[in-house]
């Protein structure tokens, strides 16, 4: 590994203590059995087809998280915690031709402590890059890019804790942050993911479910993430990792469409709160301006009368 001179580095050969614990030696079958109990309930008490956004307290979202950014959002799916901030459009650096459509610059970054297995490196790795590209592709159809030619908007995602479906959470957060930053958009964008292991579908999977789905030996296994523009009935991004037959994919797509629909009211509620807050702020500012202008006007009249008096 190349040395990073800009940070403090630990010893090169350090390993997580978790590989010496008993849990680490579990086989695949044991891990699979641990995922759900006899009643078909998952470890965190959810049904297989129950998303974390279903119950009110599991999905938490808010805007105006970062005071320094133009728009920002925070999305929490139980343990998965994602922060997103959007900055003002700026000119695209290092370009030599005119761009008719504005660009979106997306970056997804994991916190070094965000993953349960290994420590994340500081320099962006392949997974982060792949997520960034997937995020950009999902957001591009939703943003009215023709309104800001030759400019780019930075959409920056930071994942504080990764407990599955982080791409879906990132897309939801980015949609909220873009709306919070008053970037013109065609529609609300929502996203959801499903992990498939054999004949079982895990909606909104946790990290361990995703891990097993990726390494499964069954014929149908993998993770599908889909983002939807719900009013326009358009699918803006579809990412599938793993292998599964066509029948399975179509079945998953139906489920995902339905799940994405369910999230929409949650997103709308957050946006309404945001709009109301901004509206009140504007009213307050206008009232203040009026008051100040009156004082100024009085001063002006005073001076005018003084001048005329002379």
């Amino acid at each position, binding site marked *: 590994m190349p040395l990073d001179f800009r940070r403090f580095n630990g*010893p090169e050969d*350090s390993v997580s*203590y978790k590989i010496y614990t008993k849990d680490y030696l579990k086989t695949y079958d044991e891990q699979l059995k641990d995922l759900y109990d006899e009643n078909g309930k998952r470890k965190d008490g959810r049904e297989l087809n129950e998303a974390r956004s279903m119950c009110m307290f599991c999905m938490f979202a808010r805007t105006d998280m*970062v005071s*320094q950014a133009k728009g920002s959002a925070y999305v929490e799916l139980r*343990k998965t915690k994602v*922060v997103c901030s959007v900055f003002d459009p700026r000119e695209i650096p290092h370009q030599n031709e005119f761009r008719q459509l504005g660009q979106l610059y997306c970056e997804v970054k994991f916190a*070094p402590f*965000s993953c349960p297995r290994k420590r994340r490196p*500081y320099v962006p790795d392949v997974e982060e890059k792949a997520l960034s590209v997937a995020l950009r592709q999902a957001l591009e159809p939703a943003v009215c890019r023709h309104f800001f030619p030759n400019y780019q908007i930075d959409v920056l995602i930071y994942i504080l804790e990764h407990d599955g479906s982080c791409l879906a959470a990132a897309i939801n957060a980015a949609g909220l942050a873009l709306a919070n930053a008053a970037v013109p958009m065609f529609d609300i964008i929502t996203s959801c993911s499903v992990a498939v292991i054999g004949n079982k579908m895990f909606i909104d999977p946790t990290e361990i479910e995703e891990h097993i789905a990726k390494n499964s030996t069954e014929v149908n296994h993998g993770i599908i993430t889909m983002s939807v523009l719900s009013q326009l009935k358009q699918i803006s991004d579809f990412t599938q990792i793993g292998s599964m037959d066509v029948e399975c994919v179509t079945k998953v797509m139906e489920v995902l469409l339905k799940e994405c629909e369910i999230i929409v009211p949650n997103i709308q509620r957050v946006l309404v709160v945001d709009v109301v807050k901004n509206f009140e702020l504007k009213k307050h500012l206008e009232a203040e301006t009026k008051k100040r202008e009156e004082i100024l006007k009085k001063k002006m009249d005073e001076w005018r009368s003084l001048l005329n008096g002379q």
Partner: protein
Amino acid sequence: MSEVYKLIHPVKHFNDYISIKTRLDGRNFDEHRNIKLNVNSIKTADASAVVKCGNTTVVCGIKLELAVPKAEEPDLGFLITNVELPALCSSKYRPGPPSDYAQVINNIVSEIIKNSKCIDLKDLCIVPDKLAWVVYCDMVCIDHDGSLVDACIIALIASFKTLLLPSVNYDTETEEIKVETNERINLKIHGLPVATSFAVYEHFQSQIILLTDPTNYEEEMCGGNGSNLIISYNKGLLCGIQKLGGGSLSTENNEEAIRLAEQHTIAVEKVINACLEGKGTNK
């Protein structure tokens, strides 16, 4: 209207506020912002803390790893502290490798922790010359609104206080390592380092004004890159004073700053203790 004034005549606008002995957010010169603290909110880290000082938000996460100690220091463990300033925390930073300012902050925080000797590295050694803990502490700034070092140190200390080291069995003959996660011991912490930031403002070239716990805007108005003066205390002992640009300080100013920093130490200690006891998290 006031916003327009602030944009057109930023210095005059700022001076007007200073003249009437108040700051833009209504604080007195020596007043701190509210501190909010929450511990162990991130389950993937071995210990974590989230701190909000006003708008400034810092998340600290600790990951434990095992390694062979250095040959020249066989009985010492490793303590690696890093401060991350990702691009999303402020419009000042761009994505990519850490900026110069991030590296400076990183170094300051690391020096404060090292100089205060709050962690004895010998405690982190399990078997001399064979096995030692590597404590990776990553402080991530989510929202940069001034006084970053203060928030970083609070987050770091709060997460140290909640850190539990799993017990390790090391067989010297077979070199086999066994970790019991159910049996854990607290990490010993000596003292409680607290940093206090000030912005030094030169009011009409004559009067020097100390602004405690400056916001990002105040830091910018005082000309420095970040806070101008950082005083760190550890249980009544000074463990570092940094002066980074800004106006010149007289001896009286310096003494006042040290007095304020000492007061702040007590307040922060109360916050941390209150949070750990679960009584409430607000100052």
